[in-house]
């Protein structure tokens, strides 16, 4: 049984017929008390307008597929409870990415950048399965665990003006994940990542607006990760100037 009705203003773009995006208003959408914005969108898709497109999968803040801009704020639509909003809600696709269709954006650029930072453990010596696991203490795990919580939802890219103004910037999530592997005691890949991470398009493009960390639904703090890499990179630079330094 519905508890109230809301109005959803959704930015639509149908590439085969539209020359540019436009807002479509869905009025009197019935919603339950415990619904999130994603539930309302699914109601519209099932009952009102089958042509509306959006991505989603898990409905529990894990898959990172349903990122959208809700009332001007990048959010996971499965984590945006309708009860926290008024009767009128505006939903747009993530900013700073091309719109494929309606609320679906093209994320190829992010995937390319993520791969460029080699987001995997590069061990000093490769072990076979028979040699057993790479051991790690709880303290070593804790040093990078926060950065491993990233779900690639791209809310940080949507909030980042640096990426919006110049998308050659590697971007928050990719750099946070680079930091996650750099900090991992099992990894020796920092030098291998340096060309991308410590470049002008990498950490030095970031001016610490901090928006990425403010919108991150997993408290990863990409802005903090980037500043920490800057410190390490600056120390590397100074050491390289010192005779006998690394």
């Amino acid at each position, binding site marked *: 049984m519905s508890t109230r009705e809301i109005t959803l203003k959704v930015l639509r773009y149908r590439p085969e017929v539209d020359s540019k995006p436009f807002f479509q208003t869905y009025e009197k959408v019935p919603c339950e008390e415990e619904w999130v914005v994603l539930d309302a969108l699914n109601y519209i898709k099932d009952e009102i307008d089958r042509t509306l497109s959006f991505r989603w999968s898990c409905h529990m803040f894990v898959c990172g597929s349903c990122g959208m801009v809700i009332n001007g704020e990048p959010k996971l639509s499965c984590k945006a409870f309708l009860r926290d909003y008024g009767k009128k809600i505006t939903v747009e696709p993530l900013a700073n990415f091309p719109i494929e269709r309606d609320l679906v954006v*093209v994320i190829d650029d992010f995937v390319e950048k993520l791969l460029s930072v080699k987001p995997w453990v590069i061990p000093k010596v490769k072990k076979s399965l028979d040699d057993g696991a790479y051991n790690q203490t709880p303290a070593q795990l804790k040093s990078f665990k926060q950065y491993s919580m990233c779900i690639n939802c791209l809310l940080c890219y949507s909030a980042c003006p640096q990426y919006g103004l110049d998308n050659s910037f590697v971007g928050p999530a990719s750099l946070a994940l680079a930091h996650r592997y750099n900090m991992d005691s099992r990894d020796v890949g920092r030098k291998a990542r340096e060309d991308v991470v410590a470049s002008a398009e990498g950490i030095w493009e970031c001016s610490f607006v901090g*928006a990425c960390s403010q919108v991150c639904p997993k408290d990863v703090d990409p802005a903090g990760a980037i500043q920490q890499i800057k410190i390490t990179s600056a120390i590397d630079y100074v050491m390289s100037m010192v005779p006998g330094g690394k």
Partner: protein
Amino acid sequence: MSRNPYVRKMSKTTWFLTHGRYRSYILHELSSFFVAIYTGILIMGLLRLGSGPEEWAGWLEGVTSPAGIVFHLLAFAFAIIHTVSWFKVVPQAMRIQRGEDFVPGQLLVRAHYGVLAGVSVVVLILAGIA
């Protein structure tokens, strides 16, 4: 069906007006401008001091004029914004791990304010004010 992705461009001149957090960022960046101008005036004062009593008196007249006082009040307000906004983000850049735990961020922020207060007292004593 052919693809035709639509690109929405961010305005290069007005982006910082579009959200509260961007406006705070610009204010924080703008504060550097006032701190830099203040530093320039201070360095100029030192140079004038080395040039002789007349030059020094001229500089002193400039900074104590109504315009000089207004600028210094403005610079002081922006210096406070600069300090508060930078100290607030210290825990993000400075992550100190002891064993399994991290040093609490608020402790690091308070330590920065402590050092600021200590240095300020020393400067005031050296200036003969405190």
